């Protein structure tokens, strides 16, 4: 005869098994977004890197890209996945100068499937290179505004470097999703390429 205590006991054992299993296989899952921004006299460059851990989200994205359902991502499917991830990575990115919004001009993007081309739960990474020519004359004391949101609303690591004379401190902070981070700009110099 089953009793409540039997059910509890089974539940505890099952929980213990799952607990061990989860301990055995668990790791932090989600998005990890990093922005590296350089500000110089005539332009702003940004490198947006978004890593996605292996797991359910990665499985959903890879599976959605596997249009022919063969369990593998061919070049066209990977390209479509990349486009989707680039939009995901840059959709919420807002850069502003002196309060005026700046257009995000994507000049390049890369996708890393971590050498795993299956439509499975392997992790992913996308990198987006953004370059913006200043529409305004940058005056010392203006603020560069950075606002972004990660797909899972996790914090974003933002680094801002300035090519300035005298040299300005580098800014490296964890910014909450949706929060605006302001960096005071110094006397910017042009970047020599």
């Amino acid at each position: 005869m089953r009793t409540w205590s039997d059910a509890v006991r089974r539940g505890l054992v099952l929980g213990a098994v799952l607990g061990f299993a989860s301990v055995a296989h668990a790791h932090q899952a989600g998005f990890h977004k990093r922005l590296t921004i350089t500000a110089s006299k005539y332009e702003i460059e940004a490198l947006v890197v978004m890593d996605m851990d292996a797991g359910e989200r990665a499985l959903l994205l890879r599976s959605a890209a596997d249009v022919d359902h063969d369990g593998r991502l061919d070049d066209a499917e990977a390209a479509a996945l990349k486009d989707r991830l680039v939009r995901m990575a840059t959709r919420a990115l807002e850069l502003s100068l002196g309060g005026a919004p700046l257009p995000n001009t994507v000049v390049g993007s890369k996708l890393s499937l971590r050498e795993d081309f299956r439509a499975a739960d392997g992790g992913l990474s996308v990198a987006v290179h953004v370059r913006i020519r200043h529409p305004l004359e940058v005056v010392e004391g203006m603020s560069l505004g950075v606002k972004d949101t990660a797909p899972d609303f996790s914090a974003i690591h933002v680094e801002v470097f300035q090519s300035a004379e005298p040299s300005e401190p580098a800014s490296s902070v964890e910014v909450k999703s949706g929060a605006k981070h302001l960096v005071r700009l110094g006397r910017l110099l042009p970047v020599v390429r």
Partner: protein
Amino acid sequence: MRGATNSAWALVLAVGVGAACQRTQPPARAFKIGSRTELIGGKRALGEVGDYKLSNGLVQAIVQDVGFSRGFGAFGGSLIDVDLVRGNPGSPTTGTTGNDYFTEMFPAFFLQAIEPSKVAVLQDGSEGGAAIIRVSGQGANFLSLTKPITSVVLPERPLDYTCDYVLEPGKQYVKIVVTLTNTQPQPANFPITIPFGFVTLLGEGQRLFVPGQAGFDMRFHLEESVYKRAAAIDALPGEVTSMWTTEGDGVSYALVAGRSLDKSYLENKPTYYPTAKADSLLIPIASSSFLGTFWAKSPTDGVPKGGSLSFTGYLAVGSGDVASVQKIAYELKDTFVRPNGREFLLKDRTPHGWISGIVREAKTGRALAGVSVVLKDEQGNFQSQATTQPGGQWSAPVPPGKYRAFASDRTRSAASSEGTAEVADGQSARLDVTLEEPGELQVVVVDKQGRPLPSKISVEGVYSHTGAEPPRRFLYDLKAGERYRVSDLDPDGAEPSTRRYLERVFFLAQGSGLKAIRPGQYTVYASRGPEYSLGQAKVTIEAGKTSTLYFTLEHLLPTPGWVSADFHVHSVKSVDSDMELTDRVVSFAVEGVDFLTATDHNYVTDLQPTIDALSLSDWLRADVGLELTSLEMGHFNGFPLQVNPGPVQHGVFKWFLSPPGDLFAQLRGLGKDPSKVVVQVNHPRDTVLGYFNAFNIGTYSGAPIPPSSLVALDTSPLPNGEQSPYHPDRFSLDFEALEVFNGKRPDVMFNYRVPTSPLEGPEPNLPACPATGPTTQDCLPAPGEVIERPVKVSKAGEADRYQLQPAFPGAQDDWFTLLAQGRKITATGNSDSHGASAEAGLPRTYLEVGASADGSMRALDTDGLYAALKAGKAVATNGPLIDLRVNGEGLGRTVVVPDGRIEVKLVVRAAPWVDVTKVVLRRGGKDQGKAPAVLDTFTVAPTQALVRLDVTKSYANLPDGSFVIAEVFGEKSLWPVYTPYEVPSLQISDAVGVIGGAFGFGNTFGKYQPQQQQQVKPYAFTNPIWVNRVARQGLVATPRVTPVSASEPWRPRMIPDVTKLFQSLHADLE
């Protein structure tokens, strides 16, 4: 049913547990440190919150974030802390209690390093593989002195570098992969083949062991063997070995090389490196905590646009002896998958066997722990070292061969195994060693009132060997790890008094103590510095027995109103000192020093709590200070300062590329009261460590002059357009004190003169100087004269003008010039002691403080002490005491004598064991020429009397703006109280010289150069008494003070190039 159901659940549970237990190996992790509990900790720990950490449950390591280096280097991004994972509990405020004994390591491309623009986690290890931290940046000189060389041998446009620190699960080593990439639009060519590798700063406390002929003695092996071998411009001189390792207290390290895809720097050069293998290392320099290790090389055909090359090293971590880390290095096997999919063997397992044994004590049969055992093969190569465990056991891995074991510790004669043992790969053998039983020496020292006296005990022995060989060839074996024993540096003759050495020196903090001593016959001395008598007694130490001696020391030379002080002191808080705080404090108490400032390298230390804890507060007082240690600009002390307990170095600020005036102002900003801070320039003429050498200050002008050598500091503008901090315009005299008398180094105190006795060494190819001295060419003057060089000071378009400059200038002559210009800078004498062999308070500075100097040091008026220092009421001495008065006024004062006539009273006192032969009175001023004129010379007859000279004499016609000083000289060595400077360390300048020699840079004057190795002989000098004919009000300039923020933000010189960062990322699709 229930039984079956329960069995099923149990099975599920067991499977679940089994699944969890399969992964018993902890993962590797890489992350940015967010809490002090994540730091490593230890004596050499430099990690801070914000740096990056690797850990895999076995080994943990910290890579510094971008910014300036917290170690001895220039840039951030270095590996700064490495230790085994010890599982000690951590605290959010104090951090953790690990055992990091590793200072710093960074990749070197010959004489360039990476100036990082970014440090980031590349792989955090969460997916089960390796954890990786990547440092990226461009090449930059970490020594601007080397720019003339690097500008020739490296490509014109900077290359991009990445350094990946890789930690794999289950591995007890950090793999370091360095990649050089040419992102320039044209190929990067290297005019000659240059080596790539690593610069490592190990720090004192890690004893370097290099398998091969060197063993534990790389210092003399390099000087006497390696540097004498053939070298070429693309085959630098250096020791060829399979690895370097260390022995330390609870942790040890080893570096091995991965094979190069192309040939290594050492391969295919049998003339220069006949023993080199594919994974051999080249060590051109190993000293002063600085170790250069190279194996890879620049590509012969250059690096094409977009091309790259990599090299790999492995840093293993052991538990304290060489054997524990060698076993990891020998078992290391690693492969690299090329782009074409084929495997390349980076590192293969090294064939080796094992030798083990027990060390016991003779007669008692007791097993001995803590004994060092070194293994030497039949070819004379030292291959391994192990430390015996409790139970006396030891074991060590060795390459196949036949070996003998040598055991040594501090208190017994070294011994070797009776026979030898032979091992093949995978086999083991046994060797046991028996050490003699030590004796014990018990000593009690009191003063005349019978009170216990802090004092130093020196145990002197006499060896029987005669001849020219240095004691390290017969008295002890440095290569086998035996401890160094200082000798008297007298030429060994038939007289036993010429063959003396110190078997042991120990301190009695409270006047009594007991020490184990090697059996033998000795003379034991008790001393307490130059104010006290010297006790002496003979003793025979027998194995297993205790001998007791009693001494009474008399305070012969009280100094009412004066304190003795040492303003340059190092402890374990400096990377190049291993002296614990308790030993450091006691070392001063036993030498009779009253006051000291703690001045560790880039570390703010407070010794007063240690003094209080040892109940020495009546004898000794300490204040907080710092030695701001730059790589090339010089070393500067600041005191009294405040301790900032938060940051790991307690308040040190960024010094790299800051001009000296800014550094002085910031030092004052660290002070408890910035207006009272004293800034002291240390050893201003000590090679690359000297401020006056850095700015090429003219001895007779006190101002920068053009350098006479191609190898000089870089004065060109910085990449951001700012003026170089080494530009002559940046030289600053905004300091209060100049350390004229540093330790046992009269060679950097006095201008070098041609010796009267012949020297050994190469003859310079120079003509004799004309009677008027050199004019436009180098020449050799007569014995007794200063060697001078003509330096061209005229600018382009002007007629040629030359200024004479001593070839080897001394700090005292610089100081005389500054005094003649009316600059009231106080000269000090300090020990710069880093350990017991550099005696505390040798020399020291006596200061006229007043009544608070008498009695307990608890009552010392430190404000008065610093005021006395700034006022120049100071005598620098290593023994004799000088009391100089002019018209009744003491040191630092000004007398006004309209008729130019003065009355001088000069009294010189010395303890009987301090020799005084000559006293010189000098007068300087604006008219002094090259040096102050000699007013008078007094010859002192040999005597044991305390007062060696007491004279009152008048002098006339002193010009306005004169100053008077006195000097005291002695001829006999101060042995055994003060030991000779017997083993000078190789300096960074020696390393540059070795490498520069391969490029044709040599020493013009051959054998005529200052000798560092010398006995310590009595010397003292006073600060000046000023003599004016007209009363005048002195101008007092307010020193500049710059407040320093506790967390100064990093201002990068070069910002990352986002385009290059993007290009460097791996992509499966672009």
